[in-house]
């Protein structure tokens, strides 16, 4: 990168991580300052993926902006349109048909499920549990199948529309979607068991990368990162939109703020997501068919704010309209924008072998832990690369595995009912 800098005055070694990582979808560059094993400071550089979407939004009419913001992130490809339609509906003051509300929630929760499974797989890989990685991504496939079944696409569903949704869900399909959701439960049970019962995962994640409640408040973090630190916030409940007030579910909050709690929050949230989807499917049965659009005709001058709880936390959209058919100003704030800076405290409490999992624990949308190198301060010579960092992390797990004999050895069993059905 040509950016392997060394601080002159302090005798510190810098570990650059990033900016490209094939496992994650976007680029970011972390500079870890280390003294021996200990991480003392973290510098974050980003902008490698800056595409000027806010500016572009000013050149598109409102309906096109839905598709534009959908492309902010491939994983949150329904959360951004969700926040966008909330913002524009706030601007116009329209109410959406209940059937459309249910459909919005179903798509959004399916997205949360596949996003959390994706993260769980990556976390397993970072810790040296490649079986967890393979399985998490395997069981992500049925979720994407449900998305494809409903919308026609695995990602980028193009379902959202100002005033409603673009496609209806056929009531005859509801039993099959229900069954597909039921089939996910054994897989979730397996992951829950793997996390809760494995002493090695406990040793690798408990007390690692702690973000205290006060720090979470100071850094204004959102989503599972905040909830794992005991900050009880969830936009879906706090500022209810769509069908969330109509179905039964709860917000998962844990007190400790370490990586373990972040895993727990995400795993338990997946159960809630399934519950929401099933509740929405029940609700759909009662709603008249075809009423999915409030037919918004014009956009008044004024301002609108919409937010929504994406898998990683609150997405925040602000729209300023001057009465034309396109926004005069559009502001987007994705959750990782607030979450990633918190690594400056979470990461600097640990060693470099814990760095990979701590950086990954906020589920950064721009996470890049690839192409890293540890440099010697004086010679500017590379000591470690990303492969070495990953190896350090995985070796630590191996060491702990030897220290903690599993008795009986923990062998997660694959649920039989989900095997190769789709």
């Amino acid at each position: 990168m040509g950016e392997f800098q060394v601080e002159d005055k302090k005798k510190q070694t810098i570990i650059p991580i990033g900016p490209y990582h094939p496992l994650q979808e976007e680029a970011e560059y972390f500079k870890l300052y280390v003294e021996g094993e200990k991480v003392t400071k973290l510098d974050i550089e980003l902008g490698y993926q800056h595409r000027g979407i806010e500016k572009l939004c000013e050149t598109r009419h409102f309906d096109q902006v839905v598709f534009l913001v959908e492309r902010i992130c491939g994983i949150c490809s329904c959360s951004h349109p969700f926040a966008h339609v909330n913002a524009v509906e706030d601007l116009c003051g329209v109410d959406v048909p209940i059937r459309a509300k249910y459909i919005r929630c179903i798509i959004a929760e399916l997205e949360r499920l596949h996003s959390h499974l994706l993260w769980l797989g990556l976390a397993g890989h970072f810790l040296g549990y490649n079986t967890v990685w393979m399985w998490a991504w395997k069981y992500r496939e049925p979720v994407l199948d449900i998305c494809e079944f409903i919308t026609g696409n695995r990602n980028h569903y193009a379902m959202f529309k100002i005033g409603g949704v673009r496609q209806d869900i056929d009531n005859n399909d509801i039993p099959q979607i229900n069954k597909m959701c039921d089939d996910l439960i054994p897989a979730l049970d397996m992951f829950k068991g793997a996390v809760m019962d494995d002493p090695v995962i406990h040793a690798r994640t408990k007390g690692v990368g702690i973000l205290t409640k006060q720090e979470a408040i100071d850094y204004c973090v959102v989503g599972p990162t905040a909830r794992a630190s005991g900050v009880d916030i969830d936009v879906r409940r706090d500022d209810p939109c769509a069908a969330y007030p109509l179905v039964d579910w709860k917000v998962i909050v844990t007190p400790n703020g370490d990586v373990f709690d972040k895993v727990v929050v995400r795993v338990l949230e997946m159960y809630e997501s399934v519950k929401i989807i099933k509740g929405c499917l029940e609700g759909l049965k009662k709603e008249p068919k075809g009423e999915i659009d409030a037919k918004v005709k014009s956009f008044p001058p004024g301002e609108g704010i919409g937010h929504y709880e994406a898998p990683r936390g609150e997405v925040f959209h602000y729209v300023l309209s001057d009465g034309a058919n396109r926004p005069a100003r559009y502001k987007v704030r994705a959750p990782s924008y607030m979450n990633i800076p918190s690594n400056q405290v979470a990461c600097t409490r640990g060693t470099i072998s814990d760095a990979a999992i701590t950086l990954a624990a906020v589920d950064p949308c721009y996470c890049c832990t690839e192409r890293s190198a540890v440099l010697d301060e004086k010679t500017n010579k590379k000591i470690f690369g990303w492969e070495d960092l990953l190896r350090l992390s995985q070796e630590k797990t191996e060491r702990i595995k030897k220290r903690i004999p599993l008795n009986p050895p923990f062998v997660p069993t694959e649920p039989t009912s989900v095997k190769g059905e789709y």
Partner: protein
Amino acid sequence: MNVVEEVQQKLDKKINKFFKKNEQRYYIDIDAKEIVPSAKIMFRDIECRFAIATGTHTPQGFEILYHFSHDKTGKIFSLRVALDKNAPEIESITSIITGAEWIEREMWEMLGINFKNHPNLKRLLLAPDFPEGVYPLRQKPRE
């Protein structure tokens, strides 16, 4: 006392204009020099979460909206400040709210608004070789 009354009472004379868009959205105009004490009241006393700030280049000059989310009720209070057309400048709130560091850096590079006493005012999103003095989010004058 509900949170709206609390905000009105605590910000008191700092409020130039109080606009209720609907039950969940409030826009409050304040003077730019009052931003630090106001942010302190919103963040520390009323325990709002700082969601983000929106900087806008308007025909009159510049304005910043500081969006504070009151998560217990889901209400969003947006503090609006107007800045000078030629030399936009405002005090940084990063010393009170750590989470405001990035967005102030972003507004600085994208709109050319100077944040006084910011601890780390350097580029966030733009490349190091992006030309100085070019601000992507400023509106170009119409010909």
